[in-house]
C-alpha cells in the first residue's frame, strides 16, 4: 500500500472548488499529451498509443483517477480510437477521457491492464468488436464472439454477409491440457452455460482441486445481441428508447434513464420537474423489483431449489411490477421514458394508483422483517455467507466494481448522490454501505437499499399528490428529429440496480448515433469473480456468483 500514501498526503492535482482544472492536469501529463478534445461533460486528452500506460498511471497516482469506468473503441475514416473514461470513486463528477488514436494500418495500442485491472475485459471487447489490438495485454482473445469468428463487426470494412463457420466441434477447449495433465489431481469442469446456478447463459470454466476452486474463468457472450450496433441503427428521438429495457432485464426501467440522460445532455434537452419526479419514482420501483429478484435468486443458490424465500421475493417483485404496469403499460419492457420527459402521467384515477403504491410501501416493513427472519438472522446462512466471496475495497476499485457490489465492500459510491440527476438531490435518502466485503454484506446492502428506495418512492408520491394540476408537464418541447452537432461526444452514467450504467454516444450529424457504447455494471462486476472465488469451495463460488447479481443481458449486451 506504499503507493497510495503520497496520494493521501498531498492534495490532488487539478481539483478546484468548482470542478476540475484541466490545464493543471494537462500540465501533469506534460509531453505525453498530444492534443485536447472537448467532450460534452469532460475533456479528452489525446495521447500516443505507446504512452498509454504512463499517462494513465500518472493520472491514477498523481491526480487520483482511480476508477476506469469504461473503455470505448471506435473506428473513424482515418483512424482507430480507444477512449479510457476515467473517474474518481470519491467524486465521479471529476471525469476525464484519455483518447488514444491508432493508425488504421497498424491498430496496436498499449494495454492499460497494468494500471487498471478492469481494462482487461474492456480491451478484449474492443479487440473483439472493433479490431484494435493491445500490446502487453495478458490475454488478447475474443470475449463476446466465438473464437472462430471472422472479422470485427463494429469495424468499418466488416462484411456482414460473409459466412461464419462456427461448428460446435471446432470450438477448441482451451483448458484441454489442464485436465489431461497427469501430475496434478485437479479436474476441469464446466459450470454453465446450461447449469442451474448461472442465472442465464454464463459459462464458468472451472478447475477444481477437490471441492475447492483452483481456477475459474468466466466465458461470456452467449447472450450477445449486438445491442450497441442495434442502437447505432436507430434514431435518437424514438427508436433507441425501447432497447435499454432489455439490457438489465430484471430492473428494466432504470436503464432507460441512462440513455435518456446521455441523449438529453447531448442534445441539450430540458426535462420538466414533474416528469423528473415521475422518473425518479418509477426508477426506484424498478430498482426494488430488481433487488427482490436478486435476493430470491441468491437464496436459491444458498438454500437449495425448494426454498420458500424465492417465491416470497417473487411475490413482492410482482407487486412492484403490477404498479409499474399500471403506470407504463408493460411489466418489464416499459418504454416509459421519452427524451424530454415521460410518455404518460399517472393512470386515472390517480387516487387508486396512490393507494395501491402506498399499500405496497406500507406492507414492506413487515415483509422485510420476514426476510430478515428467514435470511439474515439464520445461523447457517451466516456461516455460509460471512467471509466468503471476499472482495477487498482496493481490489473492487481495480476492477471498476460499482453498485451494491462496491457498496458491500465499503466503497461509498452512488451516482444518484455523487453525480446527481433526476429528482434525487431534492429527496431525503441515504446511500447504504457495509464494510463486510463478503456475500453477507452484499445481501445486507440490497435489503437496505430496498428500504431506501421505498423512502424515495414515498416522497415522490407525496410530491405527485400535491402537484398543481396545471403544472403537470410531462414532456418538454422536443423536435421530431434530433440531429446533434457532428462529432460531439458524451459519456454519462446513471446508477442502475447493479451499479454504474454508462452510455457513450458520438454523433455524426445524422439522426442516428455514429457510436453507441454501453458500459454495463455487471460486465465489470463479473470480472472480479475469479478474484473472489479462487481458493474457495464450489458452493461458495455459486453463492458468490449469486451475490454479484449479474444479468447476462447486460454483460453480453
Amino acid at each position: 500500500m506504499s503507493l497510495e500514501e503520497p496520494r493521501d498526503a498531498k492534495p490532488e492535482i487539478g481539483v478546484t472548488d468548482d470542478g476540475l482544472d484541466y490545464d493543471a492536469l494537462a500540465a501533469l501529463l506534460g509531453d505525453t499529451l498530444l492534443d485536447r478534445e472537448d467532450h460534452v461533460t469532460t475533456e479528452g486528452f489525446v495521447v500516443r498509443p505507446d504512452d498509454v500506460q504512463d499517462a494513465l498511471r500518472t493520472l491514477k497516482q498523481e491526480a487520483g483517477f482511480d476508477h476506469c469506468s469504461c473503455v470505448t473503441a471506435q473506428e473513424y475514416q482515418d483512424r482507430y480510437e480507444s477512449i479510457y473514461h476515467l473517474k474518481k470513486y470519491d467524486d465521479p463528477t471529476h471525469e476525464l477521457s484519455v483518447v488514444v488514436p491508432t493508425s488504421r494500418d497498424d491498430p496496436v495500442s498499449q494495454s492499460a491492464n497494468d494500471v487498471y485491472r478492469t481494462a482487461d475485459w474492456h480491451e478484449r471487447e474492443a479487440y473483439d468488436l472493433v479490431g484494435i489490438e493491445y500490446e502487453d495485454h495478458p490475454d488478447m482473445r475474443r470475449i463476446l464472439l466465438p473464437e472462430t469468428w471472422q472479422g470485427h463487426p463494429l469495424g468499418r470494412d466488416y462484411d456482414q454477409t460473409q459466412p461464419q463457420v462456427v461448428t460446435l466441434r471446432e470450438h477448441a477447449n482451451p483448458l484441454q491440457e489442464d485436465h489431461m495433465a497427469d501430475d496434478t489431481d485437479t479436474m476441469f469442469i464446466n459450470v454453465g452455460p446450461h447449469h442451474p446456478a448461472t442465472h442465464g447463459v454464463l459459462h464458468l470454466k472451472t478447475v477444481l482441486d477437490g471441492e475447492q476452486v483452483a481456477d475459474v474463468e468466466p466465458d461470456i457472450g452467449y447472450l450477445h445481441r449486438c445491442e450497441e450496433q442495434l442502437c447505432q441503427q436507430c434514431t435518437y428521438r424514438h427508436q433507441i428508447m425501447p432497447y435499454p429495457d432489455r439490457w438489465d432485464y430484471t430492473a428494466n426501467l432504470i436503464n432507460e434513464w441512462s440513455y435518456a440522460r446521455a441523449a438529453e445532455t447531448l442534445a441539450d434537452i430540458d426535462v420538466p420537474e414533474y416528469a423528473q419526479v415521475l422518473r425518479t419514482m418509477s426508477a426506484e420501483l424498478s430498482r426494488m423489483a430488481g433487488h427482490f429478484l436478486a435476493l430470491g435468486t441468491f437464496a436459491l443458490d444458498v438454500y437449495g431449489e425448494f426454498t420458500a424465500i424465492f417465491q416470497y421475493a417473487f411475490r413482492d417483485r410482482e407487486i412492484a411490477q403490477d404498479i409499474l404496469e399500471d403506470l407504463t403499460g408493460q411489466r418489464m419492457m416499459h418504454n416509459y421514458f421519452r427524451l424530454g420527459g415521460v410518455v404518460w402521467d399517472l393512470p386515472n384515477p390517480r387516487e387508486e394508483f396512490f393507494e395501491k403504491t402506498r399499500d405496497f410501501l406500507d406492507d414492506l416493513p413487515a415483509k422485510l422483517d420476514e426476510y430478515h427472519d428467514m435470511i439474515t438472522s439464520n445461523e447457517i446462512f451466516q456461516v455460509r455467507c460471512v467471509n466468503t466471496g471476499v472482495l477487498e475495497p482496493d481490489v473492487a476499485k481495480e476492477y471498476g466494481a460499482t453498485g451494491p457490489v462496491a457498496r458491500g465492500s465499503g466503497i461509498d459510491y452512488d451516482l444518484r448522490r455523487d453525480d446527481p440527476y433526476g429528482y434525487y438531490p431534492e429527496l431525503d435518502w441515504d446511500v447504504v454501505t457495509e464494510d463486510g466485503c463478503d456475500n453477507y454484506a452484499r445481501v445486507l446492502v440490497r435489503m437496505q437499499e430496498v428500504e431506501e428506495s421505498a423512502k424515495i418512492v414515498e416522497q415522490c408520491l407525496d410530491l405527485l399528490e400535491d402537484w398543481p394540476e396545471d403544472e403537470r408537464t410531462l414532456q418538454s418541447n422536443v423536435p421530431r428529429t434530433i440531429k446533434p452537432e457532428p462529432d460531439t461526444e458524451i459519456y454519462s452514467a446513471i446508477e442502475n440496480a447493479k451499479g454504474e450504467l454508462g452510455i457513450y454516444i458520438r454523433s455524426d450529424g445524422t439522426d442516428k448515433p455514429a457510436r453507441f457504447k454501453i458500459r454495463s455494471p455487471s460486465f465489470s462486476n463479473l470480472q472480479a469473480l475469479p478474484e473472489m472465488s479462487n481458493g474457495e469451495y464450489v458452493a461458495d463460488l455459486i453463492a458468490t456468483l449469486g451475490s454479484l447479481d449479474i444479468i447476462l443481458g447486460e454483460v453480453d449486451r
Partner: protein
Amino acid sequence: MSNPWIAIGALALVGILIPLGMMSVSKLLRPRVPEQGKTSTYESGEIPTGDTRIRFNIQYYMVALLFVVFDIETVLIFPWTVIYRSALENGVSLMEILAPMLVFIGVLVVGLGWAWRNGAVKWVRSPRAASERRTKQ
C-alpha cells in the same frame, strides 16, 4: 419359532423383484431412438472434457481413517448398551458396569480431541487452491 432371516430374505427377494418388474415394464413401454450426441455425458451443455477416471484430491482421507476407528467403537458399545439395564437391575453395581465403559469412551474422546487438535477432523484445504487465492493482509 421360525427363522426370521428367511422372512427377511423373502423381503429382499420382493425388494429386488419390484424394481426389476418396473424395469421390464419400462422396457416394454419406452422407445429407443439412438442418436449421435445423445449419449455424451452432461457437462452443462458443453462438449464433455474427459472422463472421471482421474486422480482427484478427495480431501477427506484422514476423516475416512478416523471413521473406521469410531465405527468399530460403536460396534463395541452395542452389547454393552443391551446388557446395561438388566445388569443393573440384577444388582451389578454402577461402578462395575459403567466405569469400564466410561474409561473406554474416555480413551476415544481423548483420541478425538487429539485428532481434532491435529486438524484431522476437518475438510483439508487444498494447498494448491489456497495458493491461487491472493494473500490477504
